[in-house]
Each structure stands twice: as C-alpha cells, then as structure tokens.
C-alpha cells in the first residue's frame, strides 16, 4: 500500500474545498452550466440519464480495507447502496445529488481517495496490473512508477485542458494484465542490457469509434527520464492534437495522421530541447516514493498446507480453487480473484454490504488489501493458502465466489442504455442473459478461457474491440441491434476483433453467441486451444459459415 503523507492529504483537502466552492457557485447561479460542466468533469461528475454519476479513482487498482469501507459508506449514505467497478480501476456511483457531492468527496478524502481527473480532457487515473507487487516474475512493483505518474499528472498546470482525455497504463510483467496497448500511453517496465529499469513506451492506443493498437514510440526510456519523456509527448499532443472535431481529438488520431516515425521525431526534438530538467528523477526521489509502499510480513509457509489437501475432497471448493486462485510470488500464499459476475447480475457491481464484508475478510486474510482489475473483478492479493477453504466459504456466502473468472460468463460490460446518456443500446441485460445461458460451470470450464466484452455504443467503454467476442450495441431505425466481432484481445498480443456478420437484433444476441461458442467447440484442434487462438488459426470465415448458415 502507498501511505499518503501530510502533503498528499493537504492537496486532497484543498481540492475538496475548491470543488465545494465550485458547486456553491453553480447552485447560486454564478457559474453557467457550460462553465461548470468542465469543472465537475474534472472531478468525476457526469450528468447521466437519470441523475449525476460520480466516478472515483482507485489509482493502480489498490485499496485498503478502510478505503473499501469508506466506498461502502458513500454507496450507502449518498447513493442507493451499491457501486459499479469500471474497466479503468474506478468505481462509479449512479445516483448522487449534486449538492451532496462535496460531502461525499470530503468523506473519501479522509481515507486518501479522490475523484480528481476521473473525467474531462485531462490525464486520467493511472492504471496498472491488479497483481502488481505479488505477481511472480515481475520486474519491479509497477505501482511505484504509477504513483510517481499519478502525482505528476495531478492538477498539472499545462495539461489540464488537453484536446481530449488521456489515459496511462503500466505493466511490469511479461503477461500484460493492464491492457497497455489500448491506452494513450502504455508503459512496459523492463531492463536494458545494463540491467537498468526503464520503459518501453507505447503511444496512440485506444478504442472508441476509431480503434488503434498502441505503437512503440521508444523501446527504452530510463526510469529517471520517465516524466520528462511523458511531458514531451503531452506537450506535442497539447499543441498539435486536433481540437476541431471531438472524434478526432485523441492522440491516436494525431499519431495516425503524422505516422509514428514523424510523431516520434517531434517528441524526440521536444524532449532534447527540454535538456536538463527538474523532471529528471533522482534516486532519492524514487526511493522516497518506494519507501511509502509497505508490504506484508509474509510467514514461511508450506507450498501445500494440510488445510488445502483436506479441502480438495470438496468438488465445489476445488472448482473455485482451480478457477479463481492464482500463483503468488511468495510460497504458501495465493492471489484470489473475486468474480463480480454472478449469474444474472450486472457485471462489476458490488453492494455496500458486500464491500464492508469483503473489507473484513481482507483484514482477516489478505493483510487488509484489496485490488481492482480492469476486467471489473476484485482480488485479494496476499492470501495464505491454508486460509483458502475458510475464505471460500465466507466469499460464497457473500455471492463473491462464482467460479467463472476468465470464463465465458466473466463479461466486461459498460452501463449501457440503462444508465448512460451516450448509449444506443442496452449492455447489462445482454450480459445478464449470457450469464444465464452459460450458467452451468461444467460447460463454462469445458469452453475454457473466453472473454466477452459488451459496449452499448461506439465509445467502447466495454472494450468490445478487444473482447475475444465483442458485442457492440447500435441503433437501427429506433431498434437496438448488435454487431459481433471475434478474435480481439487486450493483452501483450493485443488485436482488434473482426466482424463476423451482419448486426443482429437484441433478442437474437444470446443465440448467436451460443452458436459461436458451439462452432468453436467443433472447430478447436485440442481442448486447450483457446477460443481466441482458434480464431487466429482459422480466421473468421469458418465461424461465420457455421453461425450464419441458418440465419
């Protein structure tokens, strides 16, 4: 965990007071809605279909149990008793009253949580691997660099009015769980030949109506130069990014229009011109941030404790363990993913009661720490394996032990037309129906890893382009239709999915998905050939033939 110091706390309180004043001026009419809009967006407040939506940042997906309790408190006191975890390690509350916003922010500030820059045309919440610090084989805990970037980007005087929003993601593992290739800037921590830590910097990834996979702009930027190099990129973008058309304003369009070589040359020139800058990180500064991350005092524990051997006789426990428990870097410990995708439930939602109970379990079994992943699930990052059986039965009672992590019913979905004023179609009911269709855990296990991502409009908050199966809601003559893509992925081999056929109406989506899955089961070479690998090997055509033959 990163521990805030007095300076961090002071800044947060100053921001809360500023926002309180802004809300007061809006309510008194001193600010027009047009003027206020940008100010509220910079603090995560959107106007949605039914009410204001409030998005709170969970930087690099790390929460303490006290922070989670405070989120539960906000859900209960200011909202309707639940929150929605998003694909960018944020949590959203859907029913907050504007006049109460400042109080909700002040309550969150007490535990070091904020909503700064969770929307608006600025640098957004810095996201990272939800297994940071515990994943085996990691170069270094990427959250140290995420926190350095978080501080650097917070209330940046030059980059708070960019052409469009700007998102960072960082990974330090060979397997990318942070989806860095679909971010405006993706950072992959690695070591050069001299053993020094630095970053491969990718730029211009993003989804939305013009999706792009990020391109490498520089294969190695030394850690000490991270901020100056990032500043060079942001400065080029701030000056030359398009501002005439909101749909062409992201950095991906600038990179695309200039070409990566030309864009890289512009950045390089700016970076060189910066010369010796105060942004260069010295060891003491990096060490200062590193020292404020604390790690559990792990015990020396056996690889397979007796408790685990005994529990293996229970097939339900075993199924959950196979599915949701992952290897920890320390022997005797495990990372446990908690599915927020129960059968029939909206993906990513958690009730205040669940959050409170989970905070208690984190205290008991995970050194008080909880993680949030971009797949809209949670994780307990430091569970002693001997505690797994007890944890499982506690999670099961809370409805947080659905053994579908990474399986067909572990669906990413945006809020869609049920909440969102931009949406063309519903997302949540499609996801709910699919979880019912694939409710049988034996079938789901047989199918294996398969990510379905659903967006209710072209803005792609549900990351449909990079779902193994992607579902995009569109509107046709006043009716909801859905375009379906296959073969997308968001990891280190990120790719955009390809359209499988004509859009289908709302009522047929689940049938088509079932047909696609059946086609895959018939076409796969071996049981362990994943859906996405089968699509890669065969292309879209054999799937199209089977699925659309009878349509």
């Amino acid at each position, binding site marked *: 965990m990163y521990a805030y*110091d007095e*300076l*961090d706390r*002071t*800044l947060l309180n*100053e921001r809360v*007071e*500023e926002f309180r004043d*802004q809300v007061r001026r809006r309510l008194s009419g*001193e600010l027009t809605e047009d*003027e206020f809009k*940008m*100010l509220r967006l910079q603090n995560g407040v959107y106007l949605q279909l039914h009410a204001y939506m409030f998005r709170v940042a969970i930087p690099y997906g790390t929460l303490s149990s006290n922070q989670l309790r405070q989120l539960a408190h906000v859900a209960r006191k200011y909202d309707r008793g639940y929150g929605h975890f998003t694909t960018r390690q944020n949590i959203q509350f859907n029913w907050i009253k504007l006049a109460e916003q400042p109080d909700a922010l002040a309550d969150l500030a007490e535990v070091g949580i904020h909503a700064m820059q969770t929307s608006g*045309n600025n640098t957004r919440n810095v996201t990272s691997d939800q297994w940071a610090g515990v994943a085996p084989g990691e170069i270094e805990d990427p959250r140290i660099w995420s926190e350095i970037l978080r*501080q*650097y980007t*917070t*209330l*940046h*005087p*030059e*980059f*708070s*009015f*960019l052409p469009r929003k700007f998102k960072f993601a960082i990974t330090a593992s060979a397997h990318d769980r942070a989806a860095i290739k679909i971010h405006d800037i993706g950072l992959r921590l690695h070591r050069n030949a001299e053993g020094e830590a630095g970053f491969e910097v990718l730029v211009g990834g993003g989804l939305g109506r013009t999706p792009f996979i990020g391109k490498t702009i520089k294969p190695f930027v030394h850690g000490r130069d991270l*901020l100056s190099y990032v500043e060079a990129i942001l*400065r080029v973008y*701030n*000056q030359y990014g398009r*501002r005439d058309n909101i749909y062409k304003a992201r950095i991906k369009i600038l990179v695309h229009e200039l070409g990566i070589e030309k864009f890289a040359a512009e950045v390089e020139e700016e970076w060189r*011109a*910066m010369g010796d*800058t*105060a*942004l260069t990180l010295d060891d*003491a*500064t990096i060490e*200062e941030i590193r020292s404020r991350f604390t790690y559990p005092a792990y015990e020396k524990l056996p690889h397979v404790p007796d408790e685990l051997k005994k529990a293996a006789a229970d097939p339900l426990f075993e199924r959950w363990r196979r599915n949701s428990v992952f290897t920890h870097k320390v022997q005797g410990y495990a990372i446990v993913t908690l599915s927020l995708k129960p059968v029939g439930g909206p993906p990513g939602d958690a009730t205040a009661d669940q959050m409170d109970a989970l905070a208690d379990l984190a205290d008991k079994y995970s050194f008080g720490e909880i993680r949030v992943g971009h797949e809209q699930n949670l994780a307990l990052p430091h569970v002693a394996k001997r505690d797994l059986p007890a944890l499982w039965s506690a999670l099961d009672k809370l409805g947080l032990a659905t053994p579908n992590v990474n399986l067909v019913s572990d669906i990413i979905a945006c809020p869609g037309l049920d909440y969102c004023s931009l949406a063309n179609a519903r997302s949540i009911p499609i996801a709910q129906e699919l979880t019912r269709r694939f409710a049988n855990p034996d079938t789901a296990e047989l199918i294996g890893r398969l990510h379905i991502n659903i967006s209710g409009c072209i803005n792609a908050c549900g990351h449909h382009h990079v779902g193994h199966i992607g579902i995009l809601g569109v509107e046709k003559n006043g009716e909801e239709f859905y375009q379906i893509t296959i073969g997308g992925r968001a990891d280190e081999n990120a790719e955009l999915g390809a359209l499988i056929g004509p859009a289908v109406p709302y009522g047929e989506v689940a049938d088509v998905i079932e047909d696609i899955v059946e086609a895959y089961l018939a076409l796969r070479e071996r049981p362990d050939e994943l859906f996405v690998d089968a699509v890669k090997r065969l292309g879209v055509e054999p799937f199209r033939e089977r699925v659309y033959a009878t349509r």
Partner: protein
Amino acid sequence: MPLVKDGKIVTDIFVHVADDAELPGDGAVLVSAARFLEDPEALLKRAGQVGVIWPNSRDVDDLVPFLGRLAAIALVFPTFRDGRAYSQARLLRERYGYDGELRATGQVLRDQFVFMLRAGFDALEAKKQSDAEAFTLTTKRYSVFYQPTGDGRATAPLRRLQQRHSESARS
C-alpha cells in the same frame, strides 16, 4: 475586462490597436501577431512599449528574435477548454527566458488562475469582475504542488527530500 497583475486589479496601460486602426504616436500598444510580423522593426522602434497578441495556433518560435524588446505578450484562450496557451507560456518563460509581461486573455476564469500562474502568466485579463476580485482568495487555495514548472514554487517531491534531510540532520 479587469486586468489582474501581481495580485491586484490594475489599469491596463496597453491600448489594444485593431489591425486597420492607426497607431498612436506614443504610449503602450498591444497589436495582433499579423500586424506585428508585417514590420516588427518599425513597431519596436517607435516610442512607447509594444506588446503582441499571439494566437494559440502559431508556434512561439517566431517570436523568439523579439523577446528582449517586447513589453508584453498576450496569449489567447478562445475558450477555457483550449489549453494550448499553457504550453506556449511555459516555453516562453522556461525555454526562451522571456521575462516581460505574460498575459492571459480570452475566456479567463477564476478556476484556471492557479494553472495560469504556474505556467508563467503574471497578468490575467479576467472575463468576470467577480473572478478578478476573488483573485487572492482563489490563488491562496493551494499550498501543495506536485510537478515542477518554472514558477519557483517548491514541489511536493522537493519538500519531502528537504524534510528528510532536516530530519536526518537532527538525529
């Protein structure tokens, strides 16, 4: 529009001269970039200070040869959402060492004041009288700044290191 300079509402000594209007014989004038670049030497030679209003879509590099002789540069915020002038301001101050008046003009609202000061502006043409009057209150709101700019404010990382040094000196 009230002008706030060095923390106070002041009278603007610069006369905005339209492109087709005749230049006054003396006194401080503020002219457009187009007019200035037509014949910079003639303008700079006349009696009285010269300032230029520089659009946010044009590189400030073109201004560099004249920086030492310009009394003011006004950078433009066509809307408060358009942040290009923040980069221009920092480049003028921090890269090119411009030390004359750097003025923010256009849609300048109180909620940008701190950003503007941090980017190097020292004169703000506030759009609203109430915002100009709230200058001191607004700009005192923040005491912690994470990132270094050329404004001389001690950043949080620097303060932490200093704190650490003084603690280790005491022990």
